[in-house]
């Protein structure tokens, strides 16, 4: 927090004046590059029968599945990812660097590779999956649970990195003060550390949710594609694109608007609350 306030402090702001054009031009080009394709969606959308297309049961089912699985996946990521981030930021165990590198691997591998890996481990004939099947009669692929797992796999690194960064940036003197006043380690974590890094957790959770919502490759590989059970919005868009591009545009727009709305609301709440 000290770093941030120094950078945007009044002294610096006064000195900066008008932004230099060598920075502004590429920045504008960057914005254009990111926004123009989205504009393309809006321009090409079949607005005349938008209402009918958006309320088709298949669309609503895919949208509901996307929103619910992404939310469950984010909750799971919070439960698993926050403790993981704490371990990475606050403890020193052998192999910590390797663990940290491994945790970020899903960020760089193609999601479809993640899907293949999940299938080989949790599939009906997978390393663990065969026992789940034999002992409990549980098969994971082709279920909504598989969608959630695929999303957790690709989205958790976003949360872990955000929270770890927040923990490293937090002022540890408060935790030390609490400890010297007699608070136990768990109390320090829940009463001091957590509230301090809450904005970081919120920002991480938003990123995580957005990534889960957009998940495609791992989902189609591991969870399959069945309307109502595993066909999320990105899958529905891909399938629609094969036969009816206009339907794909409509689905894309819906997904875009819903995610923008949720992200804008949540960012307001979490990121600006800091």
């Amino acid at each position: 927090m000290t770093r941030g306030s120094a950078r945007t402090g009044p002294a610096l702001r006064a000195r900066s004046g008008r932004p230099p054009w060598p920075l502004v031009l590429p920045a504008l080009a960057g914005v254009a590059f990111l926004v123009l394709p989205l504009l393309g969606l809006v321009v090409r959308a079949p607005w005349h029968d938008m209402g009918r297309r958006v309320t088709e049961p298949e669309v609503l089912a895919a949208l509901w599945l996307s929103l619910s699985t992404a939310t469950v996946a984010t909750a799971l990521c919070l439960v698993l990812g926050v403790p993981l981030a704490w371990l990475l930021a606050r403890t020193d165990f052998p192999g910590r660097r390797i663990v940290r590198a491994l945790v970020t691997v899903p960020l760089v591998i193609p999601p479809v590779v993640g899907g293949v890996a999940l299938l080989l481990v949790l599939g009906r004939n997978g390393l663990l999956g065969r026992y789940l099947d034999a002992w409990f009669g549980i098969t994971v692929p082709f279920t909504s649970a598989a969608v959630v797992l695929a999303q957790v796999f690709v989205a958790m690194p976003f949360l872990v990195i955000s929270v770890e960064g927040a923990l490293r940036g937090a002022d540890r003197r408060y935790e030390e003060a609490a400890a010297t006043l007699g608070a136990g380690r768990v109390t320090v974590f829940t009463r001091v550390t957590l509230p301090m890094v809450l904005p970081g957790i919120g920002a991480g959770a938003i990123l995580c949710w957005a990534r889960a919502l957009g998940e495609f490759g791992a989902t189609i590989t591991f969870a399959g594609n069945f309307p109502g059970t595993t066909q999320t919005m990105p899958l529905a868009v891909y399938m629609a694109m094969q036969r009816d591009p206009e339907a794909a545009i409509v689905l894309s727009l819906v997904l875009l608007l819903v995610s923008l709305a949720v992200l804008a609301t949540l960012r307001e709440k979490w990121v600006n609350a800091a």
Partner: protein
Amino acid sequence: MRDTPLRLVAALAAAALALTACADRDTGPGPAGPDAGGPAGELTVFAAASLTDVFESLAEEFEADNPGTEVVFNFAGSSELAAQIGSGAPADVFAAANTDTMAQVAEGEGLDREWADEHGDGAVFATNTLQIAVPADNPAGIEGLDDLARDGVSAAFCAPEVPCGAATATALDAAGLDVTPVTYEEDVRAVLTKVELGEVDAGLVYRTDVIAAGEAVTGIAFPEADAAVNDYPIALLADAPAPDLAAAWIDLVLSETGAAALADAGFGTP
């Protein structure tokens, strides 16, 4: 510190993007530039993914017969290739897995007009039929199409949006069966993979896919497949950079040599 994690993630995401972008460039079909030196040129063939093995072996023959030529392939789902051709991808020949897709390209003025006047909207050079693919050990004891409708049998089908999915629907209709699979896969190879891994008890794929998969899967023919035979048309494309080579390639595919290679791979004759 407020935006530190966001910035970190952004940087990582940018790095990831850069990585995948490079990867895409390496594996992409590559631009079919005009003859970059050398006596003969480059022939660009867009072909349905199911033709991969046959066309690659035919390409060796073609390059041997026409020294200095190089055949460059873009293998993908027929609908996707048709879309690429529609958006102006520079290609000489298109071989599709069904006539509907070729008709789409013809409608979009994508075929060479002179060639099409003589040969119509694509010359059919092969046919393909569906088979039931089961894992090598056939865990569900599948023997025919109606076994797929049994309780507890999990099946993978192609999505209705892609040609093999349309064929699947036709075959099931012909059999008067109503089967709900556990998944509608994006293409026939994805169905095959789910069968190979034993994740489903059965899948409907093309006969040629069963042969290509080797011992990992067993194919079971069923009579209703005759109702859903796919015709494979080939055509010379408009504005082909190398029309002479393209015509020679089409001749090879339609020749006895081509027919023999296709038959080896499990394709039927039109």
